[in-house]
């Protein structure tokens, strides 16, 4: 029944997090700061991983389709579908769970063990609202943008490396990525991203907020945040896929 205890405590924390702010302008400032920290701060890693993974997916697809019966534009089709359906929304979110999740848990955990959260509470400030709500809202705003960028960069990486390696011609690749394009796939990817953004930030914040002890426990909270966020992402990936694509 341990999970029930954690779920109950998580629910109460989230409920308290979204209470009316003491002063909207202060929360807005935090929200903008977090968009910069969580969103813009992740631009580099998302870009690098997306370009290289797009390139690898394209080459692997070309390698797998070495048959005269399969048209070469199928490389573009498969690269597009892998990137838009799974790589960008799920794998990139797993990477963001590692980067952003550990950052949130250690930041809030350190504030807990150094009594900074107690200081906020004694001032009469809703500490969970002030610390967690802007992070969740910033992630829900910025991560979908990062994922859309990741899709473009993945396809771009596949194009550059696929063409340079002679695996596919520019025409066939472009034809492939536009062939039978279903906008619903992007909707599906964005729905997943919104839910994963919420999971990453809220679960990490939960582990940081209830850190108890010292530096060692902050490290443990950080690890737990990444592990539980990743497991929940994978679990919800199956659930959302079943609901939206079945």
């Amino acid at each position, binding site marked *: 029944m341990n999970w029930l205890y954690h779920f109950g405590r998580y629910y109460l924390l989230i409920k*308290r997090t979204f*209470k009316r702010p*003491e*002063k909207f302008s*202060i929360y807005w400032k935090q929200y903008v700061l977090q968009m910069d920290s969580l969103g813009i701060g992740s631009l580099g890693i998302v870009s690098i991983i997306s370009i290289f993974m797009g390139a690898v997916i394209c080459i692997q697809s070309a390698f797998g389709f070495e048959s005269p019966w399969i048209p070469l534009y199928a490389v573009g089709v498969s690269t597009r579908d892998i990137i838009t359906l799974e790589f960008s929304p799920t794998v990139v979110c797993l990477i963001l769970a590692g980067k952003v999740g550990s950052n949130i848990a250690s930041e809030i955990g*350190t*504030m807990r063990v*150094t*009594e*900074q959260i*107690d*200081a906020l*509470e*004694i*001032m*009469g*400030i*809703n500490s969970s609202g002030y610390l967690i709500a802007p992070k969740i809202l910033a992630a829900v705003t910025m991560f979908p943008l990062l994922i859309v960028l990741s899709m473009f960069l993945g396809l771009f990486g596949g194009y550059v490396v696929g063409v340079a390696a002679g695996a596919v011609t520019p025409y066939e690749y472009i034809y492939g990525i536009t062939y039978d394009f279903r906008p619903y796939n992007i909707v599906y990817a964005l729905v997943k991203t919104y839910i994963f953004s919420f999971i990453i930030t809220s679960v990490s914040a939960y582990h940081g907020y209830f850190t108890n002890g010292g530096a060692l426990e902050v490290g443990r909270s950080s690890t737990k945040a990444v592990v539980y966020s990743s497991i929940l992402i994978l679990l919800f990936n199956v659930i959302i896929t079943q609901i939206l694509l079945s």
Partner: protein
Amino acid sequence: MIQVQNLSKAFGEKQIIKDISIDFIKGKVNIIIGESGSGKTVLSKLMVGLMEPDSGKVIYDGNNFIGLNFDDKREIRKQIGMLFQGGALFDSMTVEQNIVFPLSMFTNMSEQEKTERANVCLNRVNLVNVNKLFPAELSGGMKKRVGIARAIAMNPKYLFCDEPNSGLDPKTSILIDNLIKEITEEFNMTTIVITHDMNSVIEIGDYINFIFKGELWWKGNSGEILKTDNKEINDFVYCSTFMKKVKENL
């Protein structure tokens, strides 16, 4: 004035606070002393609402704080300033931002007014030209002083100080003690100091409450604590060679 009435708190089977009742007097430095693990910190956390007691009342000028919801507690908390053991300054903010933070959250003061208020508070704790520094750039004593400046920024009626001298050299400790005493008298606050430091007890303690194994064991003033026959207090007060010599000369 703060009144604690029949306050009790247990963690599982272990009773940490046992039916404590104390009146903390306005305009005076009220000290809570006791050995490590005696329940001092838990008592202070119960009083400021960081923990919920199992039973009892904490009354701030006639208003019972226990059982209020967060929004109702906020009105009382706005009148509380607290100096934490480690300072608890916000790492991501400069000294000035730390001090103006509660003002930004709860008042409609202009930026200029907030800066002026920060400077007044910093001057009061004898700190100048530190506005733009971050907490990581301050010494232990400076952090405590910034902590005091932040605690008095909202003109609180009640000031809590948790181990204000821990980790400080004797000279800085006396400086912080004197500052707490002066501010208490100047702003007519109800000040509660939780400490182990007998220097503080003797220097600034108007009323002293000795907690032993979760109970209020003894109360009196700084003159009386040195002369009491109470065994537990004598074991606590005169445990060092220095204090034993003080006792011989009393």
